[in-house]
């Protein structure tokens, strides 16, 4: 149990250096730009792109034709004998197309330029594994989409055509404002859903399914152009959020009042899974898949709360826990992902559905993290700024309370930090002592000087002249003359 937990924990760490731009400009790179940041990518590939457009043009056109044919033939094959008329209709359609081709050609070639061309370029790109995987996925999605639409016959064909026309129009809008592109996409969703229901009489449940497939089809193709586009400051916002979350690494469960007890193995398992899910969101291309990651993450959070509290989680429990998970996970390109989902997800899913609820909570969590201050963590402003600047770390205090399976490296680090703190304290003590000694010495000197002065003042030194003294002495001696003469020794006859 413990083992698996540890490896999973290790699994979710992404090396910072892998996220940075390959050119080393300090911004974050993006796999869609082969590891460059938006600026470097533009510089690097602007020229190459121009060149390749010519080369790819013909190839793209051929692909487009093949796709169309494949669709037409698969329609015919699937429908079988019953749809002789249908395939005839198809034929007529294609005849019509050839007639119109001069006018329509412009549209189709334009779209094909933007789509398959990418795939070719990627095959030549420096990170082939990732891009090949992407282009394979694009192909697979197209095939699946065609397969899926077969079951809807005429409506399916029309939906396919609508989607194609939409993609093409989007291509023409490539240089325009992202909000305009978003608006256009949303209108497309709305109109298509309305058409499905009104003209083709598709039942509401099925409309939802078709809409999901349409979203899948168009967004796999549009992702590269509309995710974190160069024209917006999404990338800058990503960096800001990332830095902000990194600066908040010290926030604990207790500060956020998270009703989750990570000491329970099952709960910490759920927490790890939730973190993995929210990180995984960035790797998905379709808004709905991204939403699904958020939903999975939320479900794991609910499980963690349910195990801890033994009652269904309310929003009062859920939101703080989600905030905690976001802080722990620091999901890559969080703002870009939120913006992308907001702009290009099928709105009906986002407004009222369960996914929408969890997404809204994620938006709330990010808004909270951005505005977070000491008050919202029940800390004084002083404490908060000390933790933010890294002068103090609240975690050290509960070193003893840490669960046993905490990473030994982290433990060691905190022990070392403790030692360093103690060392710096001692150092300070010594410096203070030295200063005191210096002061004492100065004071002592002063004191002695003062004392000497005082004594000198009190007992001034009056030195009498030597002659006087001697004279006095002599004068004293004069008096001696009056004395009887010293006794003379007498000899006694003996």
């Amino acid at each position: 149990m413990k083992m698996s937990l540890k490896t999973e924990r290790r699994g979710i760490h992404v090396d910072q250096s892998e996220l940075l731009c390959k050119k080393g400009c300090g911004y974050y790179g993006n796999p869609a730009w082969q590891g460059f940041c938006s600026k470097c990518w533009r510089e690097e590939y602007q020229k190459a792109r121009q060149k390749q457009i010519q080369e790819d043009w013909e190839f793209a056109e051929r692909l487009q034709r093949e796709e169309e044919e494949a669709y037409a033939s698969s329609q015919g094959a699937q429908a079988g004998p019953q749809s002789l008329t249908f395939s005839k209709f198809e034929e007529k359609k294609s005849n019509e197309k050839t007639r119109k081709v001069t006018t329509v050609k412009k549209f189709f070639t334009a779209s094909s330029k933007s789509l398959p061309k990418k795939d070719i370029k990627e095959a030549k790109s420096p990170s082939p594994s990732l891009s090949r995987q992407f282009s394979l996925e694009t192909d697979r999605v197209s095939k699946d989409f065609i397969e899926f639409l077969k079951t809807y016959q005429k409506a399916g064909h029309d939906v396919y055509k609508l989607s194609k026309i939409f993609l093409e129009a989007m291509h023409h809008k490539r240089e325009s404002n992202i909000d305009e592109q978003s608006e256009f996409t949303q209108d497309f969703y709305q109109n298509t859903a309305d058409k499905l229901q009104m003209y083709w009489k598709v039942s509401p449940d099925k409309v939802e399914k078709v809409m999901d497939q349409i979203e899948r089809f168009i967004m796999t193709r549009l992702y590269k152009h509309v995710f974190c586009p160069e024209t917006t400051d999404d990338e800058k916002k990503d960096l800001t959020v990332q830095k902000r979350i990194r600066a908040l690494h010290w926030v604990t469960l207790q500060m956020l009042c998270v009703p989750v007890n990570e000491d329970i193995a099952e709960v910490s398992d759920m927490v790890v899974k939730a973190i993995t899910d929210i990180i995984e969101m960035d790797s998905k291309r379709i808004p709905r898949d991204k939403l699904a990651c958020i939903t999975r993450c939320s479900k794991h959070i609910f499980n963690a709360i349910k195990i801890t509290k033994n009652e269904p989680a309310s929003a009062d429990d859920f939101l703080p826990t989600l905030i905690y998970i976001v802080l722990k996970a620091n999901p890559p390109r969080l703002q870009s992902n939120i913006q992308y989902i907001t702009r290009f997800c099928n709105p009906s899913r986002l407004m009222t559905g369960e996914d929408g609820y969890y997404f809204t909570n994620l938006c709330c969590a990010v808004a909270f993290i951005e505005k977070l201050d000491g008050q919202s963590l029940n800390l004084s402003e002083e404490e908060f700024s000390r933790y933010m600047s890294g002068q103090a770390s609240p975690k050290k205090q509960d070193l003893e309370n840490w669960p046993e399976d905490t990473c030994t490296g982290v433990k060691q680090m905190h022990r070392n930090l403790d030692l360093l703190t103690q060392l710096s304290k001692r150092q300070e003590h010594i410096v203070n002592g030295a200063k005191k000694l210096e002061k004492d010495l100065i004071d002592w000197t002063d004191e002695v000087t003062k004392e000497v002065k005082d004594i000198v003042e009190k007992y001034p030194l009056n030195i009498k002249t030597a002659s006087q003294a001697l004279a006095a002495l002599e004068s004293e001696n004069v008096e001696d003359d009056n004395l009887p003469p010293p006794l003379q020794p007498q000899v006694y006859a003996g």
Partner: protein
Amino acid sequence: MAAAGGGGGAGVSKTYSFKVVLLGEGCVGKTSLVLRYCENKFNDKHITTLQASFLTKKLNIGGKRVNLAIWDTAGQERFHALGPIYYRDSNGAILVYDITDEDSFQKVKNWVKELRKMLGNEICLCIVGNKVDLEKERHVSIQEAEEYAESVGAKHYHTSAKQNKGIEELFLDLCKRMIETAQVDERAKGNGPTQSGTSRRGVQIVDDEPQAQSTGGCCSG
């Protein structure tokens, strides 16, 4: 085809999708209220749902199908500023207070002010005095609460999640009012969308909006 323009396809009666937010301080019983409504259980160990923060209920009111999505919101004061992100695009709001807690009623008043300011009269407001089983400890006068509700164009309800009182009526009434509002809306527009919830109003997330709200919320709180 003319009927189709009216919405929802001619033969099938249309389905309304409504979003309802639950607002109120922590501990006033928001969660118990929805759990009682959707699961008919109170503080029960056998509650099957994993969570009580997003619940749905399908209703049939006079032949009109209604899909109700109930969004619980975090009631802690520090999350107050996030309100606008939650209640954006909602058709109804249930503002819950605890009849034994004067403060919680004050919070409801703040919410009403904010909602009317942000969403105008499009949103149906319900003010709910919960825990009427604790009538003896009542600190919010019935008269004051009802008068206040009327003055702001909201309806007042007395409920007890514990004794299952007044809850069914609350939601049924709210749904009827939301259908009315939606119908008025549709007539005004001429061609109503198939689902009132799916019309695209304000899916954009504006960063500054909740921030601006936060200052107002904090000061009044």
